[in-house]
């Protein structure tokens, strides 16, 4: 994190940037330790932080979890890339025609309101229990946020810049490539970053609720074996994966879109 270009390099700045998040996480862990140590929650429901920490090496070494985690991450990556490759060009095309944009927004908002987890049973009926079903549901869940952020990105293009392109007698395609696309990219990237989090949630959900492969399947078997400590360890690892990818994408955005003022 200390390599991040933004933020002052002073000790004070570093404390502010790292100190507060660390303090936040530490207080959550402290409350967790207190709750389980004082017996406020049953150990079957919530084992203490130390027990969960101790379960991590066990989970990683059981010979089953790691390959299944690989399956989950692969499914996640395929869904994200597939959706991006389709939804972004569609968004750019639709966004450049105002009438099409208005028509699309209504439909997109309707589709978006259907929670993808509610579609898992239907997904299983159509695609079975394999990776196709997992990818299909993840794609359904994230196509809309990526499409919407692309549409908003296109709509946010500064009209004066389009006029500048027109006055330089740029043809339509050149205005799209050199003005509209770069204007929309920061918002598209934000959409993809948010979609990445959503996709992980959906993929793991399908694994918990019936899919035949993936990290979620392993966690279900530990749950049935009455090992909540291992289940929590798995949840923690998956959360860490999500957080790392989110941070990497956010860092990439900061590097690529240097002209966008960051908060």
């Amino acid at each position, binding site marked *: 994190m200390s390599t991040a270009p933004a933020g002052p390099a002073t000790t004070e700045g570093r404390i502010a940037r790292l100190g507060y998040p660390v303090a936040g996480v530490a207080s959550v862990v402290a409350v967790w330790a207190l709750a389980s140590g004082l017996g406020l929650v049953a150990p079957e429901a919530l084992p203490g932080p130390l027990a969960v920490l101790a379960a991590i090496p066990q989970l990683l070494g059981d010979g089953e979890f790691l390959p299944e985690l690989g399956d989950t991450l692969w499914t996640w990556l395929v869904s994200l890339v597939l959706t991006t490759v389709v939804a972004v060009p569609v968004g750019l095309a639709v966004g450049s025609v105002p009438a099409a944009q208005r028509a699309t927004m209504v439909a997109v908002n309707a589709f978006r309101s259907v929670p993808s987890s509610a579609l898992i049973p239907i997904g299983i009926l159509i695609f079975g229990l394999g990776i196709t079903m997992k990818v299909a549901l993840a794609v359904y869940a994230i196509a809309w946020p990526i499409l919407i952020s692309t549409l908003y990105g296109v709509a946010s293009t500064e009209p*004066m810049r389009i*006029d*500048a392109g027109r*006055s*330089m007698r*740029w043809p339509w395609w050149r205005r799209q490539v050199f003005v509209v696309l770069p204007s929309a990219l920061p918002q598209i990237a934000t959409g993809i970053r948010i979609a990445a989090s959503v996709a992980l949630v959906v993929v793991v959900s399908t694994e918990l609720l019936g899919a035949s492969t993936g990290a979620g399947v392993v966690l279900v078997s530990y749950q049935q074996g009455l090992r909540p400590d291992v289940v929590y360890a798995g949840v923690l690892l998956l959360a860490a994966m999500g957080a790392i990818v989110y941070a990497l994408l956010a860092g990439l955005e900061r590097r690529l879109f240097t002209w966008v003022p960051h908060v």
Partner: protein
Amino acid sequence: MNDGATAVPALDVAGVSKAYDTASGRRIALSETSVRIEAGEFVSVVGPSGCGKSTLLMMMAGLLAPSEGEIRLDGRPIDGPPPGLAVVFQDYSRSLFPWMSVRRNLALAAASDKLPKEEVARRVQHCLTAVGLPDAADLRPYQMSGGMQQRVAIARALMVQPQVMLMDEPFAAVDAQTRADLEDLVVRLGQEFGATIVFVTHDIDEAVYVADRVLVLAAGPGRLAADIPVDLGSRRDQVETKLDPEFARLRSEVFQLVMRPRAIVDVPVSASA
């Protein structure tokens, strides 16, 4: 139109009106305006807000179509952005492309002319030097001050070696010191490049200082109220020119034309200048 003796004007605005349909009815931004601008002239356009001065400029640029009438560039009717014409927009921060270096911002301005690479590179350097930024090619616009960015915008306009340069309140967003420097820059560039310049501003001193001729527009509806020749010679100086009694007389004349409805009531003193 021509009486035979004079050449075809660089810009010929012939009976141009512009009306918009709004929710509250039809609004006339500019009504029945005709004006001829000769090649090489530096013409400034002033007027109160709502007089249609920017609308007129955007129609000259071919970015906006007149509701009635016609604007001709070198005798050819304008029906879209024409070659040989460049625009400097009001707000550099919204008209330059921050995702590109200054070099690329300039190079792409000439993209429609399909020039050889070396010629583009030569022009980039030439135009940046002309605006006093010979070493700025590799910067990004947001790494520069406002005044420097507007210089880049002017350099970008010079890339197509325009016969006509249209400037829409180009210095409204910079501080007074920078503004004086930029005024001197455009006066010099107008003479060096021999371009016809139409310069929209809301600043009366600036309108008189830079131009050979001031067009005063009136509002409600926008129309041409006066066409005033500026006889201050080709050399302008921020101190000497502004001490010239002729400058004072002209700015006072323009001031009264622009402010007339209020000037009579509120500030009669200024009329005696």
